């Protein structure tokens, strides 16, 4: 018999599972607008998981971390993404290189790999959130898969940001978050990166008349 798990740990595991599910949903989602919605939801789940960890452990900087996640991943980044989608007039479906059922099957395989890699490490952790380390690694790998299989530049970026979510989840689950100054720095990088990308998208669109990265496969070593 395993000892009973405290409610807070169950909640965190629940939110982590929601994050993983959303990662799968993003992998399957074809419409650009819904993809951004899913990303915002994933940010919200991450924020709630961090908040539960903060309440349980009473660590002050986790509250900041949760607030930062809320501001950045639920409000600021989705807002920028919506604006980009509207201004760049990205319509229609996101095209995937591999069909979606196959992608999902590959994704399931990745989750198994991630759990196996994380197992020896999460056994060493003493945090109440340690079970989620495997989930965090799985989210990172699924986001990676999404970046590989998508054709539109903007959905690659959503994949990239989703990977960042996985990394934050890993930091929270293994160690109750990184030191404050580091988290602030990471958040700043993500935000600046997003703004630069926004500028960059307009340059790409002006040059290629589309955000499809198939136009960008010219540079090769012949």
């Amino acid at each position: 018999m395993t000892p009973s798990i405290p409610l807070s740990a169950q909640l965190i595991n629940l939110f982590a599972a929601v994050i993983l599910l959303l990662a799968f949903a993003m992998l399957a989602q074809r419409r650009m607008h819904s993809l951004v919605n899913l990303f915002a939801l994933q940010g919200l789940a991450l924020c709630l998981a961090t908040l539960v960890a903060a309440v349980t452990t009473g660590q002050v900087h986790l509250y900041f971390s949760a607030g930062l996640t809320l501001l950045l991943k639920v409000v600021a980044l989705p807002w920028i993404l919506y604006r980009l989608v509207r201004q760049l007039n990205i319509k229609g479906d996101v095209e995937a290189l591999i069909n979606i059922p196959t992608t999902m099957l590959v994704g399931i395989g990745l989750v198994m790999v991630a759990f196996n890699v994380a197992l020896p490490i999460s056994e060493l952790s003493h945090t109440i959130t340690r079970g989620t380390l495997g989930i965090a690694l799985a989210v990172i790998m699924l986001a990676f898969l999404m970046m590989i299989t998508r054709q539109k530049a903007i959905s690659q970026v959503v994949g990239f940001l989703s990977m960042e979510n996985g990394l934050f989840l890993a930091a929270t689950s293994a160690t109750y978050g990184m030191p404050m100054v580091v988290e602030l720095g990471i958040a700043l990088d993500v935000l600046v990166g997003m703004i630069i990308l926004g500028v960059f998208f307009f340059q790409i669109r002006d040059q290629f008349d589309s955000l499809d990265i198939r136009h960008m496969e010219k540079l090769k070593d012949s």
Partner: protein
Amino acid sequence: MDFFVLMLAIPLVSGALLTIVGERDWAPNLNVVASLGTFLAAVGLTGEIVANGPRFAFGEQFFIDSLNVFFVALTAFVGLTTSIFSGPYMKIERDRGRLTKPRLRLYKSMYQLFMFTMLAALTTNNLGILWVAMEAATLTTVLLVSLYRTPASLEAAWKYFILCGVGIAQALFGTVLLYFAAERVLGATGNALLWTHLVDVKSQLEPTIMALSFIFLLVGYGTKVGLAPLHNWLPDAHAEGPTPVSAVLSGLLLNVALYAILRCKVLADGALPEGYAGNLMIGFGLFTLLVAAFFLSRQKDVKRMFAYSSIEHMGLITFAFGMGGPVANFAGLLHMTMHSLTKSAIFFAVGHATQKTETQLMENIRGLIKINPLIGWGLMLGTLAILGMPPFGVFASEFMILTHAMKHYPWATPILLLALGVAFASIFGKVQAMVFGETTARRLPHAPAIMPVFLHLGIVLMLGLYIPPYLTRWFHEASRMLG
């Protein structure tokens, strides 16, 4: 005022200032003056460290010892010469209509901010901030790679952003794991990511976690070093961006990324069984060396070819540090210095050559020596230097790496010789054709900046013939720190 604070403040403030006044006629001079100020502050800081030993700054957040002060001095120096070079270069680009005033403003301000992130990455004591600064360095250079807004340059910048972004995300995961290992020993305080604290307890760090952490850090920062098979962004970014950007990417960014790996290796070596981290680096290094050498022979674009040459040298340096020990570390550090100086000199010469012929295709660049002997000779001598010809300094460091490998890793010697031989054959023939023969180049209204080319080559030559004792001492101390 404190040299260290000055060194970080000058590029940051002038970067911000240049976003405002970057379109004025005197803005290029401001860029040079700021770089000069940074360099002087770095020299002052170096003197201070040599005289008084390691020091902290801003509490314990920044830490300067003999290892990183050496990179700081090198970075500030190449930063200065590149800013001098970019003055006439950018003027010609503007006359040719490839760049507009607002884009030049962007270039200058991002250039200073890039220097700031490099210097911050080198001097920080906090491994988390190191990551933040490395990512910021990518961000400042993405828009520089796409400065020409051509389809090819946009593609290159996109590749650069995504590949380095993904790579550096791996490094963040490695940092999280490292913090996890550290927290078990040092407790969940802000100090658990400070390198000086970690190095004291490195033997107590949990080996299971450190093994995984080092792999992620090596792959992550290795992407920025240009280690194969994650090197694909590097030739594109070097070939499609403006040449001063190629020079600083090759000469500085790769070094700083490698420096990040070295700091992490010291920790991994303490926690893991002997040779674990080293063998990984040897493997990656040799593989990179081979891949780059064979891609070299197929290049048609001159900047692309020298970008592959950078990958090759980074592989060699990674291999040297992988072997470890005082001799190999000394050789690695020396080679990093030599490569940095030589490669940026080559890019300066190549930059002017491509402007005079209006092409980067090597088959269309001919007879440089006729139209401008200094550029022709600069390119020729730089190429000879980078290929490891005596009496240049690259020969000394490559010789040390080779002899050390023969003694301790004899099986690696044929691979090294093969790769170096292939690289020599592919580069030398092509450069010779570009320098001599009937000319395709034409004169340009602005005189090129020749001084940086020969200044760099002069230092490389001098260090090949004679390394001053204080420099030897300094290198020795730094390589001892690396274990």
